[in-house]
């Protein structure tokens, strides 16, 4: 009986291919690592500076490895640092941002889901035109609407208030949330709606019992998108609010422009990080759902 040997001995072609593969991989990862380092460097500098002592920063310059380690700058930036006379740190502005971003995100997402539901499942004469008009909002830069908003907030008595910013972000965000939800709902088969109608369910019951339970993938996308967008938004915050009412993005500018004493780079770094933390956390924990929700249809 013939023995079949699985170990066919040395195959020079296979060995060359393996070597080739190894070097290819090595090169790819080397380049990726380099670029990752370039992109991460500024963040790293800020993180280091938030942990270094101000005196050390002054001595060794902004870009340098930390020789000291302390969290005082974080505490100061959060609660006690003085900006134009008030010594409350960023705390209040942080909560301003939270009370602006959370309601604006929830409301604009819900409205977007309802719009998407109507525009995909209850089409009417002109609904496509309406959808296309709403899409215009996606491409409209924020500064175009500064004047109208100033007028409207003035009329409503919502200037220099978080409510005003909530209103702005809800309205400005509806285009995006509607686009996301409508495109997601289009992939839900119409037969489901027809079956539900025969089953006696109406507009709202179909929305609550059939559409919403299918929606988590896209709702996660819109929530992440809206929350990070609204949190990081700066223009409306700086134009329509001031001082105690400002969201953290606008307040950070006030911090740097304070100019009373020598610049406290440690506190500034910590403040910037505090301002960046919520979107960063959302990215860390929700990033994979974001990609999944965007690429996956309603039904697997």
């Amino acid at each position, binding site marked *: 009986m013939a023995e079949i040997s699985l170990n066919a001995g040395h195959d020079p072609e296979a060995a060359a291919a393996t070597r080739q593969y190894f070097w290819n991989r090595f090169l790819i990862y080397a380049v990726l690592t380099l670029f990752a380092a370039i992109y991460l460097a500024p963040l790293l500098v800020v993180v280091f500076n938030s942990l270094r002592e101000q005196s050390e920063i002054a001595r060794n310059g902004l870009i340098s490895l930390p020789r000291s380690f302390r969290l005082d700058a974080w505490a100061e930036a959060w609660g006690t640092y003085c900006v134009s006379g008030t010594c409350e740190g960023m705390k209040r502005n942080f909560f301003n941002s939270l009370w602006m971003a959370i309601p604006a995100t929830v409301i604009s997402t819900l409205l977007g889901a309802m719009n998407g539901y109507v525009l995909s499942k209850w089409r009417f004469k002109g609904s496509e035109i309406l959808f296309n008009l709403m899409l215009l909002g996606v491409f409209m830069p924020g500064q175009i609407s500064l004047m109208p908003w100033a007028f409207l907030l003035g009329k409503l008595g919502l200037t220099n208030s978080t409510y005003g910013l909530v209103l702005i972000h809800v309205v400005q965000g509806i285009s995006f949330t509607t686009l996301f939800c409508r495109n997601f709902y289009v992939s839900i088969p119409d*037969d*489901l709606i*027809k*079956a539900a*109608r*025969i*089953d*006696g369910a109406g507009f709202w019951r179909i929305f609550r019992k059939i559409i919403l*339970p*299918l929606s988590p993938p896209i709702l996660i996308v819109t929530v992440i998108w809206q929350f990070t967008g609204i949190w990081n938004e700066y223009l409306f915050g700086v134009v329509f609010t001031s001082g105690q009412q400002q969201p953290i993005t606008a307040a950070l500018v006030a911090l740097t422009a304070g100019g009373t004493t020598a610049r406290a780079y440690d506190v500034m770094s910590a403040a910037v990080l505090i301002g960046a933390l919520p979107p960063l956390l959302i990215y860390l924990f929700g990033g994979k759902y974001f990609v999944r929700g965007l690429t996956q249809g309603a039904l697997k």
Partner: protein
Amino acid sequence: MSTLTIRNLHKSYGGLEILAGINLEAQTGEFVALVGPSGCGKSTLLAMIAGLETVTSGEIWIGDRLVNSVQPKDRDIAMVFQSYALYPTMTVRENITFGMESRGVPKAAQEEAVKRVAALLQIEQLLKRKPGQLSGGQRQRVAMGRALVRDPKLFLFDEPLSNLDAKLRVDMRTEIKKLHHRVGKTTVYVTHDQVEAMTLASRIAVMNQGSVQQFDTPKRIYDRPTNMFVAGFMGSPAMNFVPARLTGSTSISVRAADGSGATLTLAAPLPAGAPKDVVLGVRPEHIYRFTTDLKARKPAVESMQAPVELVEPTGAETLAVLRLGDLEITGRFEPDEAPVMGETITLGIDMSRACLFDPTTKALL
């Protein structure tokens, strides 16, 4: 008493006419199949009966109620979709109870109804699962369960078996037939599969290009198709159409393979005013190998010669492609009297089962 009556129903989208004057009715307990090629309007018609499409003009009556502008949920109907349309986030039980829940049926009654339907369809063990965890056949059952639980006046099926594989389709077909016998509900069943229509329906409406070509029992549709479209659509392999010429009041001549004319005597004289040129329609199973014995058993059999071009044995029967003039026709033979390739066979054509059509109007003579 009729459960469904449709009178002169029209549907158009803009200038495009989808349905052109449909008249149809279903007696209580009847199983009506709407069959036709894709695009013939059968699914639109069903959607209009369900109330999912608006009526352009005409009337739809369910029982003694004109339902043209009645909401789907108030029409006392239930529908099974081709895609099953099971609610993906709900369990089988929730799928079945969703309709009752919407209507505010008390919990105890819901429980009772689920039990009854689950037992009827043998899906008790599936009640806790989600549709995604079911096989095609199981989904089909659940979809039927969701319809059955309503106990509606009218059942609507929209190509319910199209998504199943061939074997399962035959099984489910049998089940649907059994189920219909057991519950006896009036049913309208849309299909493009003429075999499904033939096997299930008590009456078939054959549709083409937005109108009903013939509405009759399966037997009448098969034996006496009202025109060449119905004749060609129903039956597989399809009916053979052979151009022929009247040579007397009861005889026609068709062209044989060698160009000579073969005279066939008709079983019954044609009505007065029939055109000189006609189309002879013969189903493959009405073509035999001619013997004197056959002639004795079936006196209407007429004989002619035809070369055999191709033979396709399927086991139960053997299909043979035969040459007639410049046409090819198909004959269906018992395997033990099947012709062999290259043979010139003497055919026996059962003229009592043959149909004659007017070649210009395509209508049955």
